[in-house]
C-alpha cells in the first residue's frame, strides 16, 4: 500500500513509522523547513518539502497513485482542502483527516471528508468512559458507515434492571454487543441478567439513543 502523509508533526511521523513497520510505502509532505530537516534525518527521501495544499506538491508526492491520503496538518482548513483535492482531483479512494478543533468537525462532515480523527474528542470520550457523568457515552463513531458504538449504564428501577437481556425489546437498528460488570466485559447473550450498575455496550444507527436510554436508564 502507498500512503501520502501531509503534515510531518508528531502524528504524521508516527503514522509513517507504523506504516513502514508494516511494510508499506510512504511519503511525508512537510512545509516547515526546520521540521523537514528532522524528518529527512529519519525518513530520508521519503520526506518531501512543500505546501500540501498546492496541487503540484501533491502531484510530485505521487498522490495520483496513493491508496490512502492522510491529512494531519495543524490547520483544519488545510486538512479539508488536502482531503478534497486528493479525492476529487487525484482520485484517491481512502482519506483520513485530522480535526484539530472539534468545532470544525461539522465542516469536515458537510464537505464529505471522512473518516476523521480528533484528539480532543477522543480524550473526552475516554474521560466520559472512565468517569461517567452521564449514563450514555459515545465510545466510537463510524461516521461513514453511519454507526455509533454507545455505552449505557443500567440505572436502578429501569426496565433493564433485573431483566433478561433477551426479554428486552431492543429497538431495530441497534444491538447490545457486550455487558460490563465490575470492569469485566462479556459478549452479550440473551440469557444474561442485567442489574443496576452494569454497563452495556451497543452498536446502533443514529437516532436510537433515546429509545435505548429509556430501556436502560429509564428516562
Amino acid at each position, binding site marked *: 500500500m502507498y500512503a501520502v502523509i501531509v503534515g510531518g508533526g508528531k502524528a504524521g511521523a508516527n503514522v509513517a513509522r507504523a506504516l513502514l513497520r508494516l511494510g508499506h510505502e510512504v511519503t511525508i509532505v512537510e512545509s516547515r523547513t526546520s521540521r523537514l530537516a528532522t524528518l529527512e534525518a529519519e525518513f530520508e527521501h521519503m520526506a518531501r518539502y512543500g505546501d500540501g*495544499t498546492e496541487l503540484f506538491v501533491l502531484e510530485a508526492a505521487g498522490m495520483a497513485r496513493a491508496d490512502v491520503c492522510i491529512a494531519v496538518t495543524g490547520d483544519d482548513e488545510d486538512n479539508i482542502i488536502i482531503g478534497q483535492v486528493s479525492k476529487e482531483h487525484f482520485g484517491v479512494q481512502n482519506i483520513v483527516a485530522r480535526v484539530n478543533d472539534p468545532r470544525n468537525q461539522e465542516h469536515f462532515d*458537510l464537505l464529505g471528508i471522512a473518516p476523521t480523527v480528533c484528539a480532543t474528542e477522543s480524550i473526552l470520550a475516554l474521560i466520559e468512559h472512565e468517569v461517567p457523568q452521564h449514563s450514555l457515552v459515545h465510545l466510537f463513531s463510524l461516521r461513514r458507515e453511519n454507526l455509533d458504538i454507545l455505552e449505557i449504564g443500567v440505572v436502578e428501577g429501569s426496565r433493564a434492571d433485573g431483566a433478561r437481556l433477551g426479554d428486552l425489546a431492543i429497538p431495530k437498528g441497534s444491538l447490545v454487543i457486550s455487558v460490563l460488570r465490575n470492569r469485566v466485559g462479556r459478549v452479550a447473550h440473551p440469557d444474561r441478567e442485567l442489574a443496576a450498575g452494569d454497563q452495556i455496550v451497543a452498536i446502533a444507527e443514529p437516532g436510537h439513543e433515546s429509545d435505548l436510554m429509556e430501556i436502560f436508564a429509564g428516562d
Partner: protein
Amino acid sequence: MFVVVVGCGRVGASIAQSLIEDGHDVNVIDQNLEALGRLGHEFPGNLIQGPALETTVLERAEIERADAFVAATNGDNTNIVIAQVARDRYQIPCVIARVLDPSRAKFYSQQGLTCICPTRTAIDMMEGALRAFAAEMTEDA
C-alpha cells in the same frame, strides 16, 4: 440585497464600502480588530471580530439571511472552505471566493465554486501586454 463579507483587507473593505454606496446592507467579519478599523465608525453595517471558520461567528454576521457571500481573507484555504460552507450549509445563492493560487482556483471552479483569482488575472494581463508589444516589434521589423 444583504451581503456578508469575510476578510476586511484592501479587497474586502473596498467591496463592503462600494456595496453600501450602492444601497445594499453589508456585515463584515475579520479575525483582526485593526483590519475592521479600515471601515471606520461611519460604516453602517455590523463589524464582527472572530475566525470565520466558526459557525457561531458566521451566524453572528446573520449569514442565514444573506443573499450573497464574499470570502476574501488572506488565506486561500480558509476562503475555499467557508465559501463551501456558505453554499452547502446556508444555501446562499451567490458565493464568491478569492483564491490567489491559480491551480486551486481552477480546480475549485471546475467543482462549481465561483473563484476569483487575482494572480491569474495579473498573469493574463501581463502576458497580453507583452504579446502586444512583441507583435508591434515584428510589424516594425
